[in-house]
C-alpha cells in the first residue's frame, strides 16, 4: 500500500522545503525540494503564489519532493485555482510514483496536466 513508505517518511518530521524559481522564456519554472506538509505548506504557498502573474505559464517541477501531506496537496490545488483565475497555465513534472498515486486516489491529480520531465513540460508550455 501507498501509506507504508510515505508514513515512514512522514514520521521523520524533517520540515525542509526549499523553492527555486527561474524564468525560461515565457515559462516560470518552480522547483520544490523536500517535504510539503502542514509545517512547510504556509510559507511555500505564499512564495509560490507570489510568482503567479496574469497569463503565467508555470512549470512545477516536483522531482525533488519526497513527501506530500494533505496540506501540501491542498496548496497545489490553491495554486491551480489561482493560475486559473489569472488565465494562466500549469504543467507539473517529475512526480514520483507514490506522490502520483496519492494525488490520483484523492482526486488532486485530475486538476493537473502532468509530464515526465522538465523538457517535456517546457515544450508544452512554450507551445501553448
Amino acid at each position, binding site marked *: 500500500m501507498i501509506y507504508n513508505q*510515505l508514513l515512514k517518511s512522514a514520521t521523520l518530521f524533517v520540515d525542509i522545503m526549499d523553492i527555486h524559481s527561474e524564468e525560461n522564456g515565457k515559462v516560470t519554472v518552480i522547483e520544490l525540494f523536500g517535504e510539503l506538509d502542514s509545517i512547510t505548506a504556509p510559507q511555500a504557498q505564499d512564495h509560490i503564489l507570489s510568482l503567479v502573474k496574469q497569463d503565467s505559464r508555470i512549470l512545477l517541477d516536483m522531482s525533488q519532493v519526497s513527501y506530500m501531506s494533505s496540506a501540501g496537496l491542498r496548496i497545489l490545488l490553491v495554486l491551480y485555482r489561482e493560475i486559473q483565475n489569472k488565465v494562466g497555465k500549469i504543467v507539473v513534472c517529475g512526480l514520483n510514483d507514490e506522490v502520483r498515486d496519492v494525488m490520483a486516489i484523492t482526486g488532486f491529480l485530475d486538476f493537473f496536466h502532468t509530464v515526465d520531465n522538465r523538457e517535456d513540460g517546457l515544450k508544452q508550455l512554450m507551445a501553448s
Partner: protein
Amino acid sequence: MHTRIDSQPTHQHNNLKMRVGRPLPFGATVMGNGVNFSIFSRHATSCTLVLYEKGHLNPFEEIPFPPEFRVGNVFTMMVFGLNIERIEYGFRLDGPYIPHAGHRFDASKILLDPYARSISGRAIWGEAPDPDNLYQHRAQIVPDDYDWEGDTPPNIPVQDLVIYEMHVRGFTKHHTSNVKYPGTFAAIREKIPYLKELGVNCIELMPIFEFDEFEYSGINPITGERLLNYWGYSTIGFFAPKAGYAATGGLGMEGDELKTLIKELHRNGIEVILDVVFNHTGEGNEMGPTISFRGIDNKTYYMLTPDGRYLNFSGTGNTMNCNNPVVRSMVVDCLRYWVADYHIDGFRFDLASILGRDQNGYPLSNPPLLEALAHDPILANCKLIAEAWDAGGLYQVGSFPAYGRWAEWNGKYRDVTRRFLKGDTGLVWEMAERLQGSPDLYGDRGATASINFITCHDGFTLYDLYTYNEKHNYANGEGNRDGANDNYSWNCGYEGETKDPNINMLRRRLIKNAITTLMMSRGIPMILMGDEMGHTKYGNNNTFCHDNDLNWLNWNNLNKNADIFEFFKQCIHFRHKHKVLRSHEHFYHQDRGESGYPDISWHGTRAWFADWGDYVLTLAFLLDGSHVDDDMIYFAMNMHWEDHIFEIPALPSEMLWHVFVNTSANAWQHIHPPGQEPVLDNQQFINIGARSVVVLVGR
C-alpha cells in the same frame, strides 16, 4: 482584513494558548488560526482536552477546560497554534461512577470525540492493535475544503433505481480484481466501468463509519484463523469514514479518497447510499470497552433499565438512546454532514425500528427522530430506507412511520418470492401482491416504498439459495447456531457443489428466474454484490466475521458464470428501457392508455383467467405500457415441476410478441438484448418448461 478579536488568546496552559470556544459546531473545527473543540456532557463534572503527537503512546499536553469555558452542558475551547496534521486528540471526562444510576465516568480513560471526522488507530485494515496504547481510536482534525468541481447529486427518481448492495473491502480485495489498491474506496473507482456495464445506478455501501474489525475475537474452528468484525455493523465514530477502507487511510486522507470516489460515481450517473447503524455502538454491554459515549455521558447516549443496565434491542449489547433530544440531534447532525460534505444520496438504516422507540424502549406512535429526518431541509432529496424491524421483536414492514418519505426493505417480498420460486404452494395471491409493488403493505405510500430484494448481505447468496437447503456456518465458531434458519432455499437435489449437469443446469435456471422476477417487479430492486457472477459463500448464511474468500468476490467467476452475468445485465437494461416497469404509483387496474387493456391484468395458463387456487404454481401478468409510451410486457411464471402451455393474451392487430426471456429454452437462447428480441413463432400459445419464466414484449 482586520484581525478579529476572537482570534486572540485569553488563556495560556504551558506552551499552548487558548480562549473560550464556540459551542457549535460540536467536534474539532479549524477556525482561522485556531482549532475549536466542543463536546457535550450533561453529567460530567469536568473535562480535559488531551493532545497527542500522531502515533505517540503518551500525550504531549492535557488542557483542563476552565470553568468559564463551559456553556450549559457543553465544554468548548479554542486552541491556537496547533499543527492539525500532526496531532490526535481526545478527552478525559470526570464525573460520578454509579452504574446503578446510569453513570460510568472514568477519568483514567481517554475518550474519542463523538463528532470526530477522522479516526486513526485502525487506519490499516487488519494491522494488529498495540495493547500498550491506552487510546486506541484517536480523533484527528481534517480540513473540510474538498473541491467538488460543481458536483451535484444525480437525484435519480426513486422508481428508476437499481440498487447494488456492496461491501467496500469484499468487492475488490480478491487478487483477481485486477485493481491497484484492492479492498479500498480507490478500487471501487477503478470498477466504475464494470458497474455501468452491469447497469446498476446506485451502490449501497455496507457500513463505512469507523469501526473496529478487531472487536470480534473468535477463531475459525476449521482453519484456526482469527475472525474479525468484517461487516462493520458496530460503529465507533459516526462522522468518520472507515480509514482502513482507504488506500490513503494511513495518511489521514480517507475523506478525500471517498469524496473522489463519490464525485466520480456521480459523474457516471451512479448514486451512493450508506448503510448506517444508529441503533447501537461498538461499546457493547457492561463488559464492553469504554471508547467514547459510555465515558462521555452514558445515561444520555444509551437506553438503560431503571437500575442502570443496558437495554438490548439491537442484539449486540447496547441500544442508542435515539429519541433523547441530544442523541437525536447528533443523528441529524451526522446525516446532514454526510449529505453536505460527502454528497451522499441516501441512507439505509440498520434495525431502524429502534429509532422509533422511546427512552424506555417502548414504540412511539410519532417518533420525533423519524419525523425530523423526514422533514429535514438538508436531507430533503435523500433516499431514506428503513430496515423496518429490530432484534427486540418490533416488526414494522408495511407499517414503519414513513411521513411520506421512508421506504422499507421489504422482507415479505424476499420471503414470498423465495418460496414461490422454489415451488411452495398457497402463495400465488401474495406473489401477485409482491410483483405489483406490495399495495397490500404500501397502499398509501406508493410502490417505491418497497425495496424489493431476494438476497442481501444477511443470508444466502443467490447461488447458494439454490445450492443449499441448510446453513453451513461452522466456520463462524458458534456451532452452526448463528444465522437464520428460515432460508426458503432449495438445493435442487444435492447439498452443495456437484458435477451433476442436470442439477447445475437447474440451479442456473432458478438463478435466472429470480433476477427476472426481481426486475419485473414494481418497486425498487436491490441486488447483492456478486450475485451477478454466481458468488458463493459455500452455504454460510452469516459471514459477518470472515475476511476471506467467503466474502471476497472472485472476479474469475465472471468467466466461469458468464451466462449469469450476461443475464443479469440484460435484465437490468430491459428494466431501464421499459418505463412501464418503473413507477411510484400502484397500478390503477384500469385502461389508462385508452388501448382497450388495463394497465395490469392477471393471467394463468389461460389468458385472462388467473387461477388463484392454493395449489397453483403458475402466474402471469400483462402490462399495457401505452399510457407511458411503452410496449406491452407479458411475464409468465411456471414454478411447477412440469411443463405448462400458457395461452398468451392477444395483442392489438398491429403488434407482435417478441421473446426477451425464456429460461426453459436452450441456455444460449435464455435471453436476448433489449430491442433485438426475436418474434415469437406461435403468437397464441407458449410452452413454458418446468420451473421457468418467460418475458415477452409486444410492439
